[in-house]
């Protein structure tokens, strides 16, 4: 049987008395596009740094493709942690050349590989320019190009769309999707952008206060036994909000321009009757498809 791409067992890392990562268990199978979710400060970056051997951890085991040694487990793995850093006075090509040499590629092999990854991220035209003049989106793409040097089996991306404009976010999202589908690279992507993760990942883990709150196939989590979600509308939205907030069996998820998203174990008819009995006449009620955001909110509340 093929070894899992990543196995994390009881990973724990503390800063003083605060546990940033608390007995974390994860398994990423080869071919997964794995979303690592959590609110800011949940411990995602700390966990990723422990996994990549950038910082030590207090307890637990990390195994990547069967390797436990921090140097060996980085072999065949590319990573972009937070905003990628470059030597600003050097060109994109020289930055990649330096990284290729660090990765053990030399001579013609390194040059061919640099040309390949620049083409892959669409930066061939700007390769000779100094990276000081690159936009954030270009730096993010060059960071991914650097991580792709040597044809890695697995790619770690930490908040890869942070700070990008919508067009830049789409570019990176499309690139990640294409890497997973066409290049068959296992991807581990940390993010707090749920729609983004839902659109590209097949499996997710949700982290909060360093602890794993939920983990599984995206499809399974969306179809799981959580209470149904409704979009409700009323002319008197203040009264509707007050009634929902006072209710013990209906939970307000989000307020949106088109109405309120609420979650309850009641059926649509029962919800309508309950609100009507409370003096609020609904102008609209529709059952919604559960989103990853709902799963996330349930997990972290």
């Amino acid at each position: 049987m093929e070894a899992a791409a990543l196995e994390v067992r009881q990973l724990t890392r503390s800063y003083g008395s605060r546990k940033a990562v608390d007995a974390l268990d994860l398994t990423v199978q080869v071919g997964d596009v794995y979303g690592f979710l959590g609110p800011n400060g949940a411990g995602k970056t700390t966990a990723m740094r422990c996994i990549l051997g950038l910082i030590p951890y207090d307890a637990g085991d990390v195994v990547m493709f069967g390797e436990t040694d921090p140097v060996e487990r980085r072999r065949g793995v590319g990573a972009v942690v937070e905003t990628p850093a470059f030597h600003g006075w050097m060109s994109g090509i020289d930055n990649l050349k330096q990284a290729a040499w660090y990765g053990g590629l030399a001579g013609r092999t390194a040059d061919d590989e640099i040309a390949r990854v620049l083409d892959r991220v669409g930066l061939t035209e700007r390769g000779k320019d100094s990276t000081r003049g690159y936009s954030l989106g270009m730096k993010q793409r060059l960071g991914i190009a650097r991580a792709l040097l040597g044809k890695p089996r697995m790619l770690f991306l930490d908040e890869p769309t942070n700070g990008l404009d919508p067009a830049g976010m789409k570019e990176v999202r499309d690139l990640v999707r294409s890497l997973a589908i066409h290049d068959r690279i296992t991807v581990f992507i940390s993010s707090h952008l749920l729609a983004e993760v839902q659109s590209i990942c097949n499996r997710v883990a949700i982290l909060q206060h360093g602890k794993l709150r939920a983990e599984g196939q995206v499809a399974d989590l969306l179809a799981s036994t959580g209470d149904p979600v409704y979009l409700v509308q009323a002319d008197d939205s203040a009264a509707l909000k007050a009634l929902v907030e006072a209710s013990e069996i209906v939970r307000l998820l989000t307020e949106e321009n088109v109405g309120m998203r609420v979650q309850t174990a009641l059926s649509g008819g029962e919800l309508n009757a309950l609100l009507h009995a409370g003096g609020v006449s609904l102008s609209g009620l529709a059952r919604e498809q559960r989103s990853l955001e709902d799963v996330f909110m349930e997990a972290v509340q």
Partner: protein
Amino acid sequence: MKLHLLVMAEFLKLFSRISAKLGLLASLALGLAMPLLALLLVNSGLTVNGAEAQNYFSSTPNDALVNALYVRSFPVGIRAFLVILGAQAVAGELASRTLREDLLRPVPRWAVVVAKLAALLMWDAVSLGVMFGAGALIGVVALGTDGAWMATILAYFLALVCDAGIIAIVLATGVATRSTVATIAALIVFFVLDKMLGWAMVIASTAAMMFTTSEVVVRLLNQWPLLPSAAFASWAFVLPDATVNWVSVWSALLITASSLLFTLLWIRRMEVP
């Protein structure tokens, strides 16, 4: 892991820095200037303390080369470039997070330190070579071929050994402070205090011999050649009339080894941002 590729990568980074290029330019200028200055002084007809300048200044090319080494070793001389480059290589890369990108590759941390040390030594060797080459060329043309060439060449090799100690101290300070500015400031304070301590020990040892003081104190005060300032000037011990000795050479090697060991142990458990 192929160590030579890591050294090549560090070499590429280092030699493309403006500070590295300026340092090499300064080495070239110093190498060219010293023989020309000697020629100028000797033929100037100047009188110093009632005697002609040429009685005070040697006109051999290798003396000009040795004088270039002395000027190079001033705290604000070309060694300052070495401190800046060393600080940028570790502390600067920790602060700018480019060191993290290197450590995401499948390389052990000790190899990264060794590669940086090797690249800095290569820069230093090129800098010394440029200075020696330019100085020797101009010196031979302008001043002839007389002089103790063997001792001068040896002094240049020993200067490289001494500079290795400075690089090792800079790397150690860099991993501890994680800031280029803090590293440079700490090194300046360290070398100033070290120099002042050396002078104080020399003065105190002379004074101690004039008064009744225990032999242990006198012996302790006479250990100034062990201080880093004397150790890093120990390249001069091969020259006639030099005041430094083998003890300083050993001290330089010891400082190099201990600083390097500190760096390797520190970086091993260091949290990389």
